[in-house]
């Protein structure tokens, strides 16, 4: 069975380590914050200028001056700090954030990512995504493995305009977890009940299948 959004978020959360500063993109990555293990501290960076983002506010706590990068009202945890956009991206570009998780339209086996534009159809802009993928060493992309019509999103070469070149090393889809190295996808884990064959069929870029492919534990 393909992973649900909640299951994707759970698997993302397994990438967290105690003491990690993490930037979570809009959508599934943001959900992962709900699955931080109780005995672990993770601090969330929001690229509009907040380190130590907390949960959504109670109705009476709502503050128009306190939002996240998705423009949602948020709160701060103890130990949070506020800074300018230049400082925020100094932090990101300088590689000080330990883990970045974000969505994409396409990823290819060269580590390229396309996530911000579908020419002629969708032009919303890259926001901070280009800086995030260029700045982080440790990036996880989350996306569906294929389109609804069954077209692979894990390509030999991205077809859409790139967000970043050669920067993605790990992709989590609803079917599998893969690393990217030396121009190939390497299958690391399969979603519970999903076969290696099914994953291979829906992966257009070259896929290495090691002898042991673990089933994800969620």
């Amino acid at each position, binding site marked *: 069975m393909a992973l649900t959004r909640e299951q994707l978020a759970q698997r993302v959360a397994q990438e967290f380590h105690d003491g990690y500063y993490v930037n979570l993109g809009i959508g599934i990555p943001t959900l992962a914050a709900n699955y931080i293990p109780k005995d672990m501290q993770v601090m969330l960076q929001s690229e509009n200028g907040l380190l130590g983002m907390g949960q959504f506010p109670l109705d009476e706590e709502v503050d128009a001056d306190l939002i996240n990068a998705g423009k949602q009202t948020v709160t701060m945890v103890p130990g949070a700090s506020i800074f*300018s956009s230049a400082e925020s991206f100094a932090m990101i570009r300088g590689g000080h954030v330990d883990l970045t998780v974000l969505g994409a339209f396409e990823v290819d086996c060269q580590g390229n990512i396309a996530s911000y534009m579908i020419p002629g159809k969708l*032009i919303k802009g890259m926001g901070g995504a280009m800086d995030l993928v260029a*700045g982080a060493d440790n990036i996880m992309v989350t996306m569906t493995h294929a389109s609804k019509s069954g077209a692979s999103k894990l390509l030999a070469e991205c077809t859409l*305009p790139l967000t970043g070149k050669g920067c993605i090393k790990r992709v989590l889809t609803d079917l599998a977890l893969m690393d990217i190295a030396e121009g190939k996808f390497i299958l690391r884990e399969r979603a519970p009940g999903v076969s290696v064959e099914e994953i291979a069929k829906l992966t257009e870029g070259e896929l290495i299948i090691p002898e042991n492919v673990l089933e994800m534990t969620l």
Partner: protein
Amino acid sequence: MAGFDKVVTSYTEALEGLEDNMTIIAGGFGLCGIPENLIAEIKRRGTRGLTIASNNAGVDGKGLGILLEDQQIKKMIASYVGENALFEAQMMSGELEVELTPQGTLAEKMRAGGAGIPAFFTATGYGTPVGEGKEVREFNGRHYILEESLVGDFSIAKAWKADRYGNLMFRKTARNFNPMAITAGKIAVVEVEEIVEVGQLDPDEIHLPGIYVNRLIQGTFEKTIEQRTVRSA
């Protein structure tokens, strides 16, 4: 106004000298920390042919979005232009020129503009449409592109508190692009919620020194929330 007192008392005075075809650097992120009343004053003045650098273009009917209604903006330099149907329509039709710029690069271009740095290398955008036509250079085995700084004829920004000398404090994430935007404008105009007497701000707690500020005005703010998201108790 004498000495270092930057306070002006009307929005007309605040934007005196703003003319057609000028470049404006604007603070704010989404609708958070935007100079609402200065934007309204630009609409009132009817200034046209503007180039505006701002992370977003507001939403329909709010923020910089209101300057699109009468086609006052010729060109936007922005990182994210979603949430704005009029913007997309004008961009698609070619009425509005758009230079999509990564958020961190945009922030750094403003900072560099204010800091006398004409250009810098960044890995952001290498190998993407943003890097097209820009110089690529390798440092320590990685590829970087050369980005030039941004300066404006005016900058418009919003802070929380100021003293009359224009020393500024920002509040929470309404800080965002505001400090850098201010440094990058030849004439920097800042609106604030409160103006206090000189000496009332702790020199260690000032976020941006008044040297960057040319005109200061106290306003009242609507502070529209784009995504009111709450949890239940």
